């Protein structure tokens, strides 16, 4: 028999669930809850998407030289800011 679990408890366990770091009993409770709760299913999908984006390096492929250009622009901006604050 699967014991109930509240939305608030589900939210606390969602990252552990996504990382497969929950007991079989808790997994069964969470999955039973997801079947009936559109709100928590949406939270689960959202959290899953974030984890997937972070883990999927190809999503963050940046153009060649992007990092160098960004670094230089930041440096220039900082230097300009410093000069202005000295005057």
């Amino acid at each position, binding site marked *: *028999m*699967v*014991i*109930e*679990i*509240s*939305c*608030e*408890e589900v939210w606390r366990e969602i990252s552990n669930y996504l990382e497969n770091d929950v007991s079989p009993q808790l997994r069964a409770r969470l999955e039973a*809850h997801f*079947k*009936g*709760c*559109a709100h928590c299913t949406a939270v689960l999908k959202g959290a899953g998407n974030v984890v997937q984006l972070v883990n999927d390096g190809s999503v963050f492929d940046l153009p060649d030289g992007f990092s160098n250009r960004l670094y230089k622009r930041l440096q220039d901006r900082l230097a300009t800011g410093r000069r202005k604050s000295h005057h």
Partner: protein
Amino acid sequence: MSDIDAINAAKTQFREAYNTGDVDRLLSVFADGFADLSAGVPTFFGKEAKSVLRSRTVNLFQNYRANLLVTIMSIRVVHTTAYDFGWHTLTLVPHKGGEPITSRRRYFELWHKGTDAKWRIELFIDNPDLPPAMPDCETNLLSVYLQGSQ
């Protein structure tokens, strides 16, 4: 077992009682003299409430096979009192055949922990749920409130 786990387990008894058509199991989750403020039926509280609930559910299970889905939004515990709220989605399949009837209600329950350390429902109230909507879609909100005052 923590108080929250105990209330989760009591709600499981509540659900399983519906799904197995077990009236005594359902009544065991309610305190003697609880207040029943269920939607669509007259209010009962005190000694009558449990016998009325028994009569209602005996009648229900005689005519339908029930499938209850419980979604608890939150459980809050303060000493020997607690409350929880969420949704009950009840599907009734007529024994005589016919289309299943599904209703989704949002509920609030007030619990009390007895001297036997068991949590029981002291007050139950629910009303029909509505589909999710953005606040700016609720243009007829005033008319909905006024309907109840007639």
